[in-house]
């Protein structure tokens, strides 16, 4: 991670000096990560694409404000992504909360119809967690978590960030981060178990 911080700082410096190749390298380096955070948080591939582009436009405008002393470029980029997700969440508040876990399949994990999934015993974490249908259910379950819990588990369990970096991104103490991760994981398990029971 120390290495990443140095590389990131160097890329930013080259970028500010007018090296467009450096900017392209930054985009290549981080677009996948940003896209995945946005996709898991916002739920749809279209939103994730728009949000990722928004992140990079904002980043491009504010590159000269990046300060290595305050943390690695990756933390800075993740913070920017997270802040735009907060804005997006507030912006789209009206459109949400009407869909259920049985809504249309999302873009990256096509789910089988629910009737076919009833037979599937893969709904306990011990069995067949790799199945596409299960992943689809987990992805939709994630959308049902409160945004504070959702972002915490995304950064920890999907992006493998350490607690210190997550605390820096979310601007809360590490203890709060841990607590949110615990509750996020537990709430997701309860949501999935509840869905399963309803199906039965």
């Amino acid at each position, binding site marked *: 991670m120390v290495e990443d911080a140095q590389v990131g700082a160097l890329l930013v410096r080259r970028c500010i000096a007018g090296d*467009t190749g450096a*900017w*392209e390298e930054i*985009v290549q380096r981080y*677009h996948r990560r940003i*896209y*995945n955070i946005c*996709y*898991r948080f916002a739920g749809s591939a*279209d*939103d*994730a*694409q*728009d949000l*990722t*582009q928004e992140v*990079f*436009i*904002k980043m*491009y*405008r*504010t590159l000269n*404000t990046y300060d290595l002393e305050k943390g690695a470029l990756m933390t*800075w980029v993740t913070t920017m992504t*997270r*802040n735009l997700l907060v*804005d997006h969440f*507030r912006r789209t508040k009206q459109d949400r909360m009407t869909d259920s876990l049985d809504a249309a399949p999302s873009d*990256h994990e096509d789910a089988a119809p629910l009737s076919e999934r009833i037979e599937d015993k893969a709904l306990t*974490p011990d069995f067949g*967690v*790799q199945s596409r249908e*299960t992943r689809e259910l*987990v992805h939709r379950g*994630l959308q*049902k*978590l*409160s945004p*504070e*819990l959702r972002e915490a*588990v995304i950064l920890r*369990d*999907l992006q493998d960030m350490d607690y210190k970096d997550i605390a820096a991104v979310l*601007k809360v103490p590490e*203890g*709060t981060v*841990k*607590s949110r*991760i*615990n*509750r*996020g*994981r*537990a*709430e*997701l*398990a*309860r949501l*999935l*178990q509840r869905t399963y029971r309803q199906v039965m």
Partner: protein
Amino acid sequence: MPDPTKMQCGEIDALLSDAIEGKLTGAQLASFEAHTQSCASCGPLFAEAAAGHTWLKSLEDVEPPTEMVTNILVATTGLDTTRLHAKFGERISWLDRAQDWADGFFTPVLAFARQPRFVMSFGMIFFGLSVSLSMAGVKVTDIRHADLRPSAIKRGYYETSGRVVKYYENIRFVYEIESRVREFKKATAPAETEPIKKDNRHTNDTSQEPEQHQERNYSQGDSQQLLASSPTQPPVVILEGTYRRLS
């Protein structure tokens, strides 16, 4: 009187993720296990959090759309066509693609329409021109202020091609498309090549401020209650409340 050698519920919350991720060892692991096996609130919480962790870990990275990097570079640095073409092969801008498609689509029709019996009077051409404008829904002003987000472009593309197909059915006016496309190209060329960068510089006033100074919350009042909620309470109650408030 609490036994000082025994772990309390308050300590469990801090150790739960370490336990789930297999980082607890020795005496700490032993007393953690002793507590979660006997405590009616920490035991289920541990089991559920572990299940949730396993489920989350089953999610893999998804692949971003292939054109994403190009789109981002176009949206940020403006069009640098030679480098983009060299780097990303035959990928060209959506506007070029749309124009090529329109050209290819109408060429055989135009050859057919050029036969003498389809040559229209001067007045007819003007009539066709105005109809083609409204039916194809292509206005120069619209394009200049077009929404350039990828999803909006996708949407716009299908809407426009739908309208174009409807228009095509009205074969009398096909004769006009060629000149429309030429005008369309001419009118949009400057808008396309103008670097977005320049524009951004001017609107660059407040956007970076919140990054450094301001904590962003999903909703103001709720987050305080969320932080204040006690970890020893049954979590389901807190979460249900939080969820409803935030929704």
